[in-house]
């Protein structure tokens, strides 16, 4: 062990000594400028080499360059074609048809301040958090369902989960944000606008699957109920949240 330690120390001493030696030796060597004068590096061949390096780099980036150019050409063509075709009445009609068709399959649910009547929206400047949602009472839950979890996902989102032994569930989400917007695909469900306790509510229901969702807003919270349940029961649950 002593021998190893001694060797390590000696190696350390040697390393420093050799560094000192090298420094002294390099001091004796003429400066870079003098050396360059004595043994000039051929600038011509150096430039040639640098040009070659650039060429190699350029050659490597060539496919990317072509790809970029192709993308620009395609973009220009699409823009020009769009500009030309939009002048045609038939094309304009086709675009409108497509947009209408798309909107037919989606419904936009918007609870932002501007979209609701003033008397149904709380105009207070303060944002309510779901911690205050304890004051909400879920007055009706069908028989057989049990509360399995309450999750505060954020300060503004709380979810109540009820499940039944048969595998059905009711998820009640309470959102205290003042603006809630969503586009919902209604391709597989029936869409209805109904009234829950005098507030507008959006009901999506699939009869075959016996599942659906109901979204509505009272004067403080936006409520979202998603469930596997009969439609009448779903509405009853919504009406009893007070």
């Amino acid at each position, binding site marked *: 062990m*002593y*021998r190893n*330690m*001694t060797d390590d*120390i*000696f*190696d350390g*001493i*040697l*390393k*420093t*000594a*050799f*560094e*000192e*030696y*090298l*420094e*002294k030796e*390099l001091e004796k*060597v*003429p400066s*870079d400028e003098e*050396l*360059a004068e*004595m*043994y*000039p*590096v*051929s600038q011509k*061949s*150096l430039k*040639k*080499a*640098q040009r*070659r*390096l650039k060429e*190699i*780099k350029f050659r*490597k980036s060539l496919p990317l360059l072509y790809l970029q150019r192709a993308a620009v050409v395609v973009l220009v063509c699409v823009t020009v074609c769009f500009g030309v075709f939009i002048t045609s009445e038939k094309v304009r009609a086709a675009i409108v048809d497509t947009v209408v068709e798309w909107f037919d399959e989606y419904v936009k649910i918007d609870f932002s301040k501007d979209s609701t009547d003033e008397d149904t929206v709380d105009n207070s400047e303060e944002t309510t958090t779901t911690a205050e949602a304890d004051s909400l009472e879920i007055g009706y839950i069908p028989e057989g369902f049990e509360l399995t979890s309450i999750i505060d996902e954020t300060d503004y989102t709380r979810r109540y989960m009820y499940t039944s032994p048969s595998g059905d569930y009711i998820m009640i989400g309470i959102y205290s944000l003042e603006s809630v917007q969503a586009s919902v695909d209604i391709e597989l469900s029936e869409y209805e606008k109904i009234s829950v306790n005098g507030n507008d509510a959006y009901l999506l229901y699939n009869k075959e699957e016996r599942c659906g969702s109901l979204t509505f807003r009272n004067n403080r919270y936006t409520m979202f109920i998603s469930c596997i349940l009969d439609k009448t029961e779903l509405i009853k649950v919504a009406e009893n949240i007070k």
Partner: protein
Amino acid sequence: MISYYLSIVETEEDREKVTYIYENFYSFMAYTAKQVLKNNDCQIEDAVHAAMLKIIENLDLIDLSDPQRAKNFCGVIAKNKAKDMCKLKDNQSISMDNEIVQTLEDKNDPTEIVIRKDTYEIIVKAIYSLNDSYRDICLLKYINGLKEREIALILDLPPKTVNVRIFRARQILKKALREENIYV
């Protein structure tokens, strides 16, 4: 010539390394080779060329982040290539490797190591007195941090020879210290 060097390396990174070495250390390598070859310009160029090829073979061993170490690396290789050309190396190495080095008594207790202010001066002085072939190997080991196997590759020597030379160089340097009553 640089175009030739660039054509024999594969990656872009290596090409940049070779260009840097050629641009910054070509003159130094020529100067170092000249110290061995005196005024034979043709041979100096050949030695630098051989050194460049050797450097390219071992590009991964050279660390360009420390120019002084890189310079030492290139200088040692150029010097050795110049020596090869003079055909001095073989004769010298045979005679040196066969020389008997006096075995020194080791004081093994590190607590007894005394490092005086002039320790480094004594060692540096002793390094000057070392034979070139010992010194170059030690420079590659202690300055460039190369392993014995890597040094053997660079200097075209059997690894065993490298080990022996490092051992002997250390013994010589230790002896120099002992003569001044410094025990390591």
